[in-house]
């Protein structure tokens, strides 16, 4: 089962490598990983998408918690949450027909064209992983995907519940 874990940790050199090392050393899967400082400069926040049964997840959570730099870890999948991922995708847009199609599909997915070249459009779409997959499959029916990049997901719990020190 797919899980989204949110981790709050000290913004110290090496703390990210400890997390990544832990996952590889214990053969836990990483589907995606995002990391950035938070509004409090001394803290970083990591979102990891992973998969595994309850036992594996329990070990992941315990093992991550055991790292000295980690302040908190929570499994967002357990409760209702907002999940987002950013996609930038470069599409072949040779003629009017494909250009209109790309624009139309981008609109449906609330995407934006953020750059255009002579023969290419670059589209930005945000949403959960499923929505981005759906977008990619819709545009690939109309034109060729030249390049794409995804941010990996970030997530936050709905409502009052907050991950903070």
């Amino acid at each position, binding site marked *: 089962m797919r899980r989204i874990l949110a981790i709050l940790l000290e913004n110290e*050199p090496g703390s990210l490598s400890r997390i990544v090392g832990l996952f590889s050393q214990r053969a836990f899967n990483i589907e995606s990983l995002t990391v950035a400082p938070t509004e409090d400069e001394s803290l970083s926040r990591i979102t990891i998408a992973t998969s595994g049964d309850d036992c594996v997840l329990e070990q992941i959570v315990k093992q991550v918690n055991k790292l*000295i730099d980690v302040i908190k870890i929570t499994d967002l999948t357990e409760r209702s949450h907002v999940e987002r991922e950013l996609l930038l995708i470069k599409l072949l847009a040779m003629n009017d027909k494909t250009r209109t199609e790309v624009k139309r599909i981008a609109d449906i997915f609330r995407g934006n064209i953020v750059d255009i070249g002579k023969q290419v459009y670059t589209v930005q779409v945000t949403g959960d992983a499923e929505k981005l997959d759906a977008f990619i499959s819709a545009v690939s029916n109309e034109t060729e995907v030249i390049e794409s990049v995804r941010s990996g997901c970030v997530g936050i719990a709905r409502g009052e519940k907050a991950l903070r020190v």
Partner: protein
Amino acid sequence: MTKELYTGAEMVVKALSALKVKYIFGYPGGSVLDIYDAIFNQDDVEHILVRHEQAATHMADGYTRATGEVGVVLATSGPGATNCVTGIATAYMDSIPMVVLAGQVATSLIGDDAFQETDIVGCSRPIVKHSFNCRKLEDIPNIIAKAFYIANSGRPGPVVVELPKDMLIPQNKGEFHIDTDVQLRSYNPTVKGHPKQIKKAVQTIANAERLVVYTGGGIVLSDASEQLTTLVERLNAPITNTLMGLGGISGVHPNFLGMLGMHGSLEANKAMANADVILALGARFDDRVTNNVQKFCPNATIIHVDVDPTSISKTINAHIPVVGLVDKVMAQLMEEMDATGYERNEAALTNWWQQIEEWRSVNSFSYQAPAEDDKIKPQQVVEAMYEITKGEAYVCSDVGQHQMFAAQYYPFAKPRQWINSGGLGTMGFGLPAAMGAKLAFPDSHVICITGDGSVQMNIQELSTCLQYNLPVVIVSLNNRSLGMVRQWQDMIYGGRHSSSYMESLPDFVKLAESYGHVGIQINHLSELDEKLNEAFAIRNRLVFVDVLVDEKEHVYPMQVRHGAVDDMWIKKGEKA
């Protein structure tokens, strides 16, 4: 008045002295020469120069296991630091508190593949509890204080501190501040068990008919053996220790069933397999204990007490997990028993003990005593050492058959008396660990029990022993082979002894003598007692006793591979 300023190197030494460190174990090199210079200029902290950095880590480790104080290692960048890796891993696997100060090239050179640069923090990442890089010299004292705190609290373990050369040099100075009362917002190990779980545990124990107390190194690490003994006596429960837990309760206590696991006693493994409740205290269900986890104690309710939550339900699912320090939790259990008026189920206990005595009567540790002119059995040597030292020695072992014979035939009265690499199984650990223990307890007998294979892995330390006058007694059960490997080859690989013989062994007597020590060889059964007594009577010089033992001897009992805990070979070709 102007404030006194110190170099980073001076700060390192001042911090160690503030933390009451008596000894550091190490080896100099370019990146840490400033620290060596600072050591030269003071008398608080004594440096012990080993001959190989791996030995420094094991020596610090042995010192720690014997005393409970954090061991400190100092190594230069690059090869010095990488030589520490095996010792760091050894400490990590057995949860031994250790601080390794590793030199590093100057900050400006880091990442340039500079001379003697290795990323030691990276190399050691999977085998440390934590690591620190120093990037400001004023931070050094507090980083070292934090390193000590982390190494020695919660589940203990090794911590690496990387010290770049430019943090240490005389050109840079700063003020010295140290805060030894460390608090970290991201690290607050759980101390006490959850009251609800304590209640559940006591209820489960009270309802048990076939309780077994199963303890590990956690008891030794937290010096909780008196409490354990009280608890066991109150419950009148059978108790078994892991290899790491030996000495947690006296080896001759009537409730003690012997070690369990791969080479454990039949009664210990049988009791585990037939238990309805297992109270696990500071033990982590290592695979050398459980054997096949699928077949492990199917009918038992497992109460698992451990300070490290990751150890709980990692391999064996715990029905009642209790996170906390094992001594604190044992106190809680007793309080709860007092509060709820715990009474033993004497009828069930009588039945249970009857059953256990039946298993005990098999005497699974008995070996075939040799006829007069036969080869010496290794077990006899251990038994003789027990007699001579009245069971009071510190026994440090290497890894192999001799280690198991020591664990089986030397009943340890006290914790910290048995010092061996249980988790990693590091050959080469024994001699330096014994040196550490001897340094701590110069008046006690400290034995290194070893094999012809293991002892050669750090034999250069005989030189260190001479320099610092560390008269340990080395007893090598010399079977001219890598005995444990050979045993597996006999039992599992059709007797094909691929690379398990030691060809061209040195003359150990001459070798010991050449280092300035006493060498004694024991060849015949008839001279075993006399010569061992002679060796142990020498108290002011190191004695290397080379005992030629029967090379065909196997360690029994032994669990059948992939079987249940109590599927055991009792002797060659005979299952329990």
